[in-house]
């Protein structure tokens, strides 16, 4: 006997598909009040906040985080986790740069073609994802522990390869995506925006995207329904890590160099952004719109804290406090969306 049945009947949810979608959107938009409050505070504390260059700066500085969040959201939807994404952000461009630049500047001196280096960055990302995916899916290790080990291991390799140095002198082609401007706006913002649109479409209209929800909701049922659960999970890890390596490439372009600490602590912001945006760590629930709003909230917050002149040593404390507050608002302001 399902005791919830009697109450369920009285809920007229999903009567009209249109109304239903509005309601779902509104739930996702529960981040919006927080974002607006932070923006209003920003506008009050600094006249520089509401200027085109500053807003562009916020978007540009959120781009790498945004791309990592897309991949992380895919993984979280399946009910898995990969915290090593932040180390992939550092390692993939580091190895490529190391092969790319002259020995005199800290490279290996092979001086491969920059386009090959770009491709190599993405391939390294994909391979790391494949490895993580195999460990989680085939060896059946716990994703948190696996990716914790990988986070440390990959960061260690990055340090070892670079000997702790910063690799500068990157060729233009390698830096292009992180430094070019299209129509007066950084290319990275365009690319990130397009990736978010693609991610939203994939999650709504692609069989693979819907499979993520099915697996996160009930993996056994998904398997019995004919979804190739293992294959979908492994590709999810590959996609997420490839996106992370691309984020690393963009970051390298922005900084005009590759440092051994690139991407460090990024995963905490990424997790916070996804969860603030309504993506459930237990899997099966959440949408990319929410994750995007989470990214924008964190990006705006960082910017406002800097503009407000919050002492450097206190920035993290305030940042953490606001994340907690956002989670509170999300928890009590609206129930998490279902699909």
């Amino acid at each position, binding site marked *: *006997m*399902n005791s919830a049945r*009697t109450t369920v009947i009285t809920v007229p949810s999903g009567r009209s598909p249109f109304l239903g979608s509005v309601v779902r959107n509104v739930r996702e938009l529960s981040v919006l009040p927080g974002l607006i409050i932070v923006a209003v505070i920003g506008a009050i504390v600094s006249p520089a906040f509401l200027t085109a260059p500053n807003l562009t700066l916020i978007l540009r500085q959120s781009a790498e985080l945004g791309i990592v969040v897309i991949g992380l959201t895919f993984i979280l939807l399946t009910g898995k986790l990969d915290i090593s994404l932040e180390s992939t952000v550092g390692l993939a461009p580091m190895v490529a740069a190391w092969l790319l630049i002259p020995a005199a500047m800290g490279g290996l001196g092979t001086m491969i073609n920059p386009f090959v280096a770009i491709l190599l960055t993405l391939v390294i990302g994909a391979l790391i994802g494949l490895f993580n995916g195999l460990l989680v899916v085939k060896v059946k290790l716990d994703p948190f522990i696996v990716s914790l080990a990988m986070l440390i291991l990959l960061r260690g390799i990055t340090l070892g390869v670079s000997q702790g140095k910063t690799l500068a002198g990157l060729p233009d082609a390698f830096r292009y995506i992180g430094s070019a401007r299209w129509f007066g706006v950084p290319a990275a913002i365009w690319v990130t925006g397009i990736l978010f649109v693609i991610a939203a479409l994939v999650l709504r209209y*692609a069989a693979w995207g819907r499979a993520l929800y099915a697996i996160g909701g009930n993996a056994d049922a998904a398997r019995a*329904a004919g979804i190739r659960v293992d294959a979908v999970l492994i590709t999810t890890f590959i996609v997420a890590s490839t996106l992370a390596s691309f984020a690393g490439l963009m970051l390298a372009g922005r900084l005009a160099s590759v440092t051994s600490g690139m991407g460090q602590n990024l995963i905490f912001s990424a997790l916070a952004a996804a969860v603030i945006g309504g993506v459930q760590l237990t899997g099966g629930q959440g949408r990319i719109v929410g994750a995007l709003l989470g990214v924008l909230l964190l990006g705006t917050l960082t910017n406002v804290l800097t503009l407000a002149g919050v002492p450097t040593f206190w920035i993290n404390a305030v940042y953490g406090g606001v994340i907690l507050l956002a989670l509170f608002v999300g928890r009590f302001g609206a129930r998490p969306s*279902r699909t």
Partner: protein
Amino acid sequence: MTTPSTTVPAIQIDRVSKTYGATKALQDVSVSILPGQVHGLIGRNGAGKSTLLRMITGLETPDTGAVRFFGEEAPPASDAKAWQQRVACVYQRPSVFTNLTIAENLFAGRLPGNGPSVSWRTMQNEAERILSEWRIDLDPKSLLSDAPIEERQMLTIAKALDAGTRIVLLDEPTVQLEGSAIRRLFDKVQELQDDGVTFVFVSHFLREVTAICDSASVLRDGKLLWSRTGDDVKSDDLVEALLAGQEQRRHRVESAAATATDTAPALELRSATEKGGAFTDVSFRVAPGELVAIGGVGGSGKYSVGEAIAGLRRLGSGSVLADGEVIPTGKVKASQKAGVGFVPADRHKDGYVPQLSVAENMTMGVMDRLAPAGFFSPRKQNEMSRTLIQDVALVPPNPALAVSGLSGGNQQKVVLARALARDPRVLVLISPTAGVDIAAKDAIYALILRALADGVAVVLISDDVEELLVSSRVLIMREGRIAAELAEPTEEDIVRAIEGLE
């Protein structure tokens, strides 16, 4: 009430009403249950049984009316401890801590010891005492996850009674149990009844109600239809009260395959043996339009055979053929493409994704057709699911509703629709009507009948003898092998074959 008595009732439900929004879940219901009675509570899904149970367990308070235990007013809803002392409830999935030991489960919430420190020795001794009293042959130090479901239910009752509870509610306790376990549970209930323990027994199976209940109430649409004591319970009134306004249930399905046995089989198993060994050397053929039922005790391997046909288990040797073609084993997609539709044993575990919509759940197995290039149109998905919703008569017929919001019977219809979505040539159904009400049961049997008429080969695997009787050809499995094949069996034939009494 028809029970004039001088004794104070153990449970007295006095003119209770409850309304949720526009739904009148209970209207002016009065039931008295005397100490030592086993009271059957019967009604279709939505009749108000759950609501009534929730009143008796303190999870809901009546809008009007009162609940009394042994003449005393029920404690306030906030006092969970007081409720637990009066009433214990055993669900079909006992709510217990599988990660803790049996002893810890028996004493959860009342660990023995001084202040904050737990006396493991006392707990151990006490647990051993309870287990031996109940003749449960388990080590109190072993983890509960190692104990079978029947023992977990027994432990739940044992715990409640040990804590002093004298009223036990059994909410469809037999759904997950097999024949011998059900008999053991019933024996224990009768034994405790003699000690004056009062039971309320909720079940979809009338046979079970007539077997152990000495009083019963029938609910329909939130109203009490009747409440009786004594021999009246055994009468056909029960069936009539429940079915009033309902078409009589059809039993034996006359399969269209009587003439079709000489045609090529739609499904054939050749010495199928599982890697790891849940079943060995299983061979049988099913013709198009033929119904074959498979029975056996739990652990006989009958479910595993079904799961192997569906591609969820890999064969070590032997083969599964659909329309004469060998299906690669262990691959669900391959089985689906070969024309196999599958309804798993446990719909909660393997059947559906609760938070996804009806449309998504129904089309989950045909995404390769809906989205040949990877992307699909939700409009097409909705159209397809609307057809399926009509086919299985889903209530409410809304493709956008999350499956978690449907009743058990309708959730099962969604799972069945998923199996039918690919127009299967072979249907493998494991306990397709377990835990669903009679109306849904009828709907599901009607669907099976229609599939048979369309020439689909159906394999019906079940624990429920009543369900096996639907088929005129019944295979019985014991210890992983097919032990008997029965034609036109009676209930007794089947039970004897299952228990191995040749």
